[in-house]
């Protein structure tokens, strides 16, 4: 095991979240394809997204998406802004902070129905 610094962990996390998002994309293609089989099948299938476990998985997806997007911007800045490499570590902490700040309200909206709380009609909408 190599004891790398933030750069190594940011890259590893970027990889893992990227693969997780790709996995969701495959699931998403399947659920959208069900539209072709009529409204009943689609609605029944999509109801799975309202169950507690899938709501938990959905919050993980939100976390992955937020981190991957913000870190993507960090990588673009390292690549195109000549001074970007100097601030890569600070930018990594900004990425983490931005991801957490974005995550809290979204996680609340998705998870609240599990606890019987319905902010802005969240209970009637599937998590995704």
């Amino acid at each position: 095991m190599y004891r790398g610094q933030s750069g190594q962990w940011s890259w590893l996390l970027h990889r893992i979240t990227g693969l997780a998002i790709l996995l969701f994309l495959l699931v998403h293609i399947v659920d959208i394809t069900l539209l072709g089989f009529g409204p009943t099948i689609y609605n029944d299938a999509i109801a799975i997204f309202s169950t507690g476990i899938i709501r938990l998985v959905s919050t993980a997806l939100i976390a992955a998406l937020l981190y991957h997007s913000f870190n993507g911007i960090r990588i673009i800045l390292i690549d195109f802004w000549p001074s970007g490499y100097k601030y890569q570590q600070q930018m990594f902490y900004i990425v983490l902070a931005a991801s957490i700040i974005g995550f809290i309200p979204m996680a609340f909206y998705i998870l609240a129905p599990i606890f019987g709380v319905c902010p802005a009609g969240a209970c009637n909408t599937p998590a995704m």
Partner: protein
Amino acid sequence: MATVTAAPRGATQTGSDLRTVQVRIKRFQPDTNDQPYWQEFTVQVEGKDRLLDALNKIKWQQDGTLTFRRSCAHGVCGSDAMRVNGRNRLACKLLMQDLGARITVEPMLGFPIIRDLVVDMDPFFAKYEKVKPYLINDEPAPHTERLQSPEQRARFDETTKCILCGACTGSCPSVWANSEWVGPASIVNAHRFIFDSRDRGAADRLNILSDRTGVWRCRTIFNCSEACPRGIHVTEAIEEVKRAIMYGSEE
């Protein structure tokens, strides 16, 4: 109150600085054991001793079979790069007082291991040769030298510092994953000539570095910059080469 007694003539000033450290070394002796194994040594050192001194003490006083490379022992030849407490370092540039009482020493990752801490550097130098790390200029030589302004010289100053120890290449996850990849050290040495105003081989080198095993496998992980014992901003150099390829010019 502590009483001060005059030290006898010739006594070393640092005599009281002796400390006992445990050095855990990942060993590989292919002629007797086909598996790598860990061995622990206890050694007395002074705080201002370097890790290389501790390794020498082990080799000279405890186990002569311990094998490692060293040559100049002063951070210039780049022979003794190894993984110390999980990070690539030159053993001759580490003071024992900065390392703690328990030290883990392993060979670098990403290189075939020949014996103990000695890794096979041949593929490393083959990749180094690949980027043509020498001045290319077929224009007739001027009457005196090929002149260069201080600004033109400063453009590639950073990458002239490389000593080819391999610490950056051995710290790079892209190298561990793909041994074909040219690696950070080669790109640093390509950078040194690409941005040299006297050189005419930049287009050739950029072409070599733009293929599948070239610069694009760098994922900006920054392990290399942290590992470099010469303090070269390796990732910056790689990014500059990437931009030179993308924008089609060295400026």
